[in-house]
């Protein structure tokens, strides 16, 4: 019966959420190792987030609804694009925005590929990149936020997943 299935699905997903932080970290590490040739290291408990001046976002819709963000400095995002494209950081130019958005897209895609049963039932939006630090992000989410602090080539990087049940 459909209502029962729906309820069961939600309960299962809720139970699985405890495993999401390590899966999100693993998804990010795989993307950085495969596509950038860089290892992500665990970061400190907190960063000075005022220095973060670029954010990439990808929306998830379907079985999981929410938003995944990557936040760091423009300098770090530029380094990501140079490593991903095999060019000097000085040559990255506007490609940096697309490359940073693609990194976010791949982390979101790799994360959803790791959660059984949601892959076909969850779609990703095209990535959006915001520059600047003076903004606040409000998403229609009610299930808390998974946030992972990492270091990319010594640059601070925060990966967040906000989910709406």
């Amino acid at each position: 019966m459909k209502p029962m299935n729906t309820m069961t699905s939600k309960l299962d997903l809720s139970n699985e959420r405890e495993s999401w932080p390590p899966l999100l970290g693993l998804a990010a590490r795989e993307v950085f190792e495969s596509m950038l040739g860089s290892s992500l290291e665990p970061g400190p408990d907190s960063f000075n987030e005022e220095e973060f001046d670029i954010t990439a976002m990808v929306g998830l819709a379907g079985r999981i609804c929410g938003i995944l963000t990557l936040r760091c400095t423009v300098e770090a995002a530029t380094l990501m694009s140079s490593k991903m494209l095999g060019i000097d950081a000085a040559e990255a130019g506007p490609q940096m925005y697309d490359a940073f958005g693609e990194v976010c897209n791949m982390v979101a895609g790799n994360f959803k590929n790791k959660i059984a049963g949601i892959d076909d039932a969850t779609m990703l939006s095209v990535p959006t990149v915001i520059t600047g630090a003076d903004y606040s992000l409000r998403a229609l989410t009610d299930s808390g936020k998974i946030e992972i602090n990492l270091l990319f080539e010594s640059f601070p990087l925060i990966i967040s997943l906000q989910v709406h049940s």
Partner: protein
Amino acid sequence: MDNVRVLIIDDSSVMRKIVERSLRQAAINLATVLEAGNGVEALAVLNKEQVDLIFCDINMPVMDGLEFLQQLPGVANAKGAQVVMITTEGGESHVARALQSGAKGYMRKPFTADQVKEHVLPLLV
């Protein structure tokens, strides 16, 4: 196979560059690298150019990768071309639909040059 003519179809210009870079890192000898931002652009490219290998994203505006695959049998310049789908959407239904539509391989992002080599070399013999 030497002097491979490849068409890379992705709405992200960055991802097209990454695929090309991965092919070169995999020591695949590329004679020509053509690019298109969606299926319609790819069909226009194939009206003029013959290719041996096609890398195609699935989710693209205007014409997505699966619709492009369905159009491909009628394209003379793509006769014998091997198609590898490359996407973040790695669900089983996507894989099945792509393979049923004529794709010879399917790669999920993220990927390494070694994985590209592993997928592509058997298709080029």
